[in-house]
């Protein structure tokens, strides 16, 4: 089948329905054809038998009528001695008065009538010129040995002769009825043969009689003798030469021979004679003509007998064809109504396979199984869309690797983890928590999202896994779940990129009138447990362990714009990084000093370098009076400490204050200088160092967040210097 056809369900359905129906029609039609044929053939057979019987009877009557004439004459000759003249008169009248009789003779045994005459056989026959009389016996025509004479003589009974050409008599083809007559004694008992009375019937007369019998349109009747010889037949050439048996032999048709025997031996019958006899399929009905022992056959061409049934059948076939066409139309329509929604669903499916989940199956309005399937399919697409949305949403926080791992791996959601060396990156905005209090929520979120968006992009770019985003803080790690050989370098580079991106963010923020903000990043490498952490209901892929906490601590040492890496990380990337400064810090719960490396850049394939900041402290002529609040865990704690800024740079400042503060402490600096309009605005900073100078403390701080107002105050202070 053409692939197009095979791929079309409607066509397939229609073909199946049509095929099945055609088969049923064919079966029914064949049955009806054969059944009606049987009935009609039965009927035809009956008619044919009746016809053959009636024709045979008709001919029988003729033969009997003819036979009566010589029989009567013979009987008369047996009881009376006639003189010659009377005999001749009698014969003459016999021929004259009987239309069917062509000629007649009374042939005597040798010397039976006259002892001087061996031959005495007066004969009258009809010829063109009229009634002719002749004596048929002579030395050249010894009638005593002729069948027409000899047979009745030997058989002592009348005989119908097969057609023969008689040169002694009429010199035509004739059939003769020969009736012997005998001497009778006074008791009437039969004695010696005296002679034979004959009545000749011209074959032409018989042929005309048989030929006049109408057998349908093209059928015909014929007569065969008791030896199967053709007596009459439309085919003249068969007469006197062929018999039904010689035909059978010539045609190599044993059935025909059997039929011939049946015709000879049965009273009547009906048979299928095949096509050999008359060149087309034919039936033969036959009946015996008793007085001669001959048989009449009526040939019925099969087509004629079956004409009616064929006509009926043709009509049936036509009707069936029309019905099939109608059925084809209907089944195509039905099939299409089924296949069309399926086709649009198939199209939708391939659309889904391409990743396009916006499918519209509203065209399918049916509520059957197909409709239900469509509804389910739409629901499935929606489910898929939901999954993608989840994936995308998660991706913002979880990175695609984790999402994929969760969604695609069977064990992705299993709780539990493994010990793994990874590199963690923790970033935090300096002074952001404090900022949150002074900013309207929408603005705050936009502000935060700008920052987080950028950072997440960078992290994803470097294949970092975002463990957690809490407020402005990000914890990410490298080297899990998929192992990365170069996770320290990658993490450092990523941190540098993140740090570098802060300039861009701040530029945007400043343009929007938002405060500048600085970010600190810590990078640490260490063994942690990674895996799905949480409960069955809520879990995340994350990292836990002391190194995570350590990273958090490290981060608290960073100031804005700084990337601090731990010594473990440094060991991995020592050759690559450009260290600006090494900080020696003390950490809670960790004995001794911890070295943290403030790095400027990384070389190699990652190649990121932070720009150097122009960060020269400028001595202010007019000190800026500020109130300093120490921040304990990002909460402004205690009352403020009066202080004044004596030197300032864009990122750092030197403050003089009476009370001591602690290195690495976070502080909030609120301007309280009456000269400025910006009283009350604040900035956040980290204490980098504290020195005691003549009873006063001088602290170097690095701003982590400065509002534009504060910056304006600082600029003015610098300019007036």
């Amino acid at each position: 089948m053409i692939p197009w056809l095979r791929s079309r369900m409607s066509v397939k359905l229609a073909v199946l329905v049509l095929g099945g129906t055609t088969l049923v029609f064919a079966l029914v039609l064949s049955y009806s054809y054969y059944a009606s044929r049987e009935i009609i053939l039965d009927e035809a057979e009956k008619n044919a038998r009746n016809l053959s019987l009636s024709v045979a009877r008709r001919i029988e009557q003729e033969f009997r009528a003819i036979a009566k004439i010589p029989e009567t004459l013979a009987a008369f000759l047996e009881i009376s001695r006639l003189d010659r003249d009377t005999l001749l008169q009698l014969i003459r009248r016999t021929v004259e008065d009987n239309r069917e009789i062509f000629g007649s003779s009374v042939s005597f045994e040798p010397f039976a009538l006259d002892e001087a005459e061996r031959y005495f056989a007066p004969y009258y026959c009809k010829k063109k010129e009229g009634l002719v009389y002749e004596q048929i016996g002579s030395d050249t025509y010894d009638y005593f040995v002729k069948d027409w004479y000899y047979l009745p003589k030997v058989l002592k009974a009348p005989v119908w002769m097969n057609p023969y050409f008689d040169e002694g008599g009429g010199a035509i083809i004739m059939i003769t009825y020969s009736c012997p007559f005998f001497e009778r004694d006074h008791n009437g008992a039969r004695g010696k043969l005296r002679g034979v009375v004959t009545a000749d019937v011209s074959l032409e007369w018989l042929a005309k009689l048989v030929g006049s019998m109408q057998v349908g349109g093209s059928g015909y009747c014929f007569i065969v003798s008791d030896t199967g010889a053709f007596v009459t037949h439309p085919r003249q050439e068969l007469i006197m030469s062929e018999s039904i048996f010689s035909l059978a032999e010539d045609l190599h048709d044993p059935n025909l021979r059997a039929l011939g025997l049946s015709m000879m031996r049965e009273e009547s019958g009906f048979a299928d004679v095949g096509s050999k006899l008359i060149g087309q399929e034919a039936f033969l009905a036959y009946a015996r003509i008793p007085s001669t022992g001959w048989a009449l056959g009526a040939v019925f061409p099969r087509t004629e007998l079956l004409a009616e049934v064929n006509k009926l059948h043709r009509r049936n076939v036509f009707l069936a064809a029309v019905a099939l066409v109608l059925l084809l139309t209907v089944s195509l329509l039905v099939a299409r109504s089924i296949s069309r929604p399926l086709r649009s669903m198939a199209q939708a499916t391939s659309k889904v396979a391409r990743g396009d989940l916006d499918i519209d199956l509203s065209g399918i309005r049916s509520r059957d199984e197909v409709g239900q399937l469509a509804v389910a399919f739409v629901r499935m697409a929606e489910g898929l869309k939901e999954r993608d949305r989840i994936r995308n949403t998660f991706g913002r926080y979880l990175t695609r690797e984790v999402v994929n791992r969760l969604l695609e791996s069977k064990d992705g959601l299993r709780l539990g983890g493994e010990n793994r060396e990874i590199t963690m990156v923790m970033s935090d905005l300096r002074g952001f928590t404090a900022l949150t209090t002074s900013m309207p929520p929408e603005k705050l979120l936009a502000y935060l999202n700008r920052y987080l968006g950028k950072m997440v992009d960078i992290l994803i770019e470097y294949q970092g896994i975002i463990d957690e985003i809490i407020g402005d803080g990000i914890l990410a790690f490298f080297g899990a779940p998929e192992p990365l050989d170069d996770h320290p370098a990658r993490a450092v580079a990523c941190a540098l990129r993140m740090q570098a991106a802060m300039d861009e963010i701040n530029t945007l923020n400043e343009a929007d009138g938002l405060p500048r903000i600085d970010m600190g990043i810590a990078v640490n490498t260490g063994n942690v447990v990674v895996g799905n952490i949480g409960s069955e209901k809520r879990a995340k892929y994350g990292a836990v362990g002391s190194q995570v906490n350590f990273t958090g601590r490290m981060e608290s040492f960073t100031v804005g714009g700084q990337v601090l890496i731990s010594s473990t990380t440094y060991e991995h990337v020592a050759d690559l990084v450009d260290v600006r400064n090494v900080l020696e810090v003390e950490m809670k719960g960790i004995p001794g000093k911890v070295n943290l490396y403030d790095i400027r850049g990384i070389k190699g394939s990652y190649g990121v370098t932070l720009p150097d900041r122009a960060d020269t402290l400028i001595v202010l002529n007019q000190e800026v009076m500020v109130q300093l609040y120490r921040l304990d865990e990002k909460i402004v704690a205690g009352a403020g400490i009066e202080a004044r800024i004596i030197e300032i740079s864009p990122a750092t400042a030197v403050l003089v204050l009476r009370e001591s503060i602690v290195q690495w402490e976070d502080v909030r600096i609120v301007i309280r200088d009456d000269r400025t309009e910006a009283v009350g605005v604040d900035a956040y900073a980290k204490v980098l160092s504290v020195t005691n100078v003549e009873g006063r403390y001088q602290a170097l701080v690095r701003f982590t967040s400065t509002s534009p107002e504060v910056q304006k105050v600082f600029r003015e202070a610098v300019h007036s210097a």
Partner: protein
Amino acid sequence: MRKLLVALMFLVCFLEGDGLHAQTPLKKVSLIPQWLPQAQFAGYLVALEKGFYRDAGLYLTLMEGGPGKPPFNFVASGKVTFCTEWLSNGIKKRVAGLRVVNLAQIVQKSALMLVAKKKRGINTLEDLAGKKVGLWADHFFLQPMVLFAKNNLKVEVIPNYSSVSLFLKGGVDAMSAMWYNEYHTILNSGLNEDELTLFFFSEEGINFPEDGLYCMEETLLHDPDSCRGFVAASLKGWLYAFEHEQETVDIVMKHAQAAHTGTNRAHQRWMLARMKDLILPSGDLARLGKLRAADYELVGSVLKESHLIDYLPNMADFYRGPK
């Protein structure tokens, strides 16, 4: 154009042929077979139609034989050069003083047989006792009578003059028939083989070779070449006929229809096949046309015993055919 060429070629052949024979004028001879034209004489009909006689330098006129035309009468009167006749008739004629010679013994076996109806209770030879048997007269009569005598059978002999009608109509229970002719006519008149009992004289120790070619001894003395040529062409005709059944039946039918014998192809095909069985028994080509001394002696002795001849002529005088 093609037609013209064919016509031209035909003309050339015709002229050539004519020219050839013009050099050696054809010898006029004639033949009368002992019966009407039928496959019994296929060899001569074929030889005539295929030009074998002309090739032998003979211009043969074929006379129509049949009832009331004893062939030896025609030969004796000099009206006809050659005739076919039964061997027994040939011997009888020779002994009776007609100096005929046998130029070839064509039919080697008796085709004469008795056909009996099983329905009339005839299954064995003995069953013929008391039955009506239709017999032909003359030479057809001898063998049956010898058979009955040999087997001490008393049968009622009914003369049969021509056809099989008497037998078929039940006038007789058995009849003499020729294997190649009447027997087949009976079969094709609606009697089956298994309904008939057959007695072949050739199998009953009375095998009379039948048709032979005859001419007057004088003819042979004066024109031995023509006689030899006639025999050779006739034998060639027979061999050709056996090889070409279809064509031969066509030729036979043509002659039979001209003589209004009222026959059919099936019958002539049967007859031709039987003639082959009779002329070449067991396909033996070496016997073609030859009279065997044993057969001659047998026929002679039967004739003598039947007092139909006083003596048997010397075979060498009588038989002048192929050795």
